[in-house]
């Protein structure tokens, strides 16, 4: 069964902190890993990772994939209250896109 597991399920930090969100996945037919941010409604795309060890970066957010250990991390540095959201990771398995349960991040001012 294709499975994606995220941890922690929720997290509260203060502005300026650095956070690391984790995502592990099952390997059968896995092709790529995606990260999304969901604030109020539709998830918005952040990163897609297909190769191991290559960091993708966008401003204060960065992500990397480890295909040997079957996990990915999403780092957010110098967090701001606007980073408060649900962060979702998903694995692509052929035509399927399988999501984890998400990490709820709350950044306090």
């Amino acid at each position: 069964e294709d499975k994606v597991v995220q941890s922690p399920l929720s997290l509260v930090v203060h502005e300026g902190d650095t956070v690391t969100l984790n995502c592990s996945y099952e390997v059968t037919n896995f092709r790529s890993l995606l990260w999304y941010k969901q604030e109020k409604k539709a998830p918005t795309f952040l990163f897609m990772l297909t190769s191991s060890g290559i960091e993708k970066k966008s401003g204060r957010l960065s992500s990397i994939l480890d295909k040997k250990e079957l996990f990915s991390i999403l780092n957010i540095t110098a967090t701001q209250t606007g980073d408060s959201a649900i962060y979702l990771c998903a694995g692509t398995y052929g035509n399927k896109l399988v999501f984890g349960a998400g990490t709820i991040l709350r950044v306090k001012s």
Partner: protein
Amino acid sequence: DVKVTQSSRYLVKRTGEKVFLECVQDMDHENMFWYRQDPGLGLRLIYFSYDVKMKEKGDIPEGYSVSREKKERFSLILESASTNQTSMYLCASSFRRNTEAFFGQGTRLTVV
């Protein structure tokens, strides 16, 4: 910009009713998906379609069916709505396999 449009933002239906949720994408994407999102459970895949008239069951297809008669439109059907189908329903599309998906704004369905 890719646009995925769901026909309703909020719906209230009675138990036993047949419910149609419609989703349209405007970017000629091959793949379309229906998910439901519940607190603590994340997005769970109900059905997906990789071509017109093609469909595959996701992880929780029971109580649902789908229709894809045209490439741009993917409909989710609740044959006989039940209270445990109260949820947020999200439609998504992707250009082809192993590419990012784009989401509609969601339909919050309440079954009373």
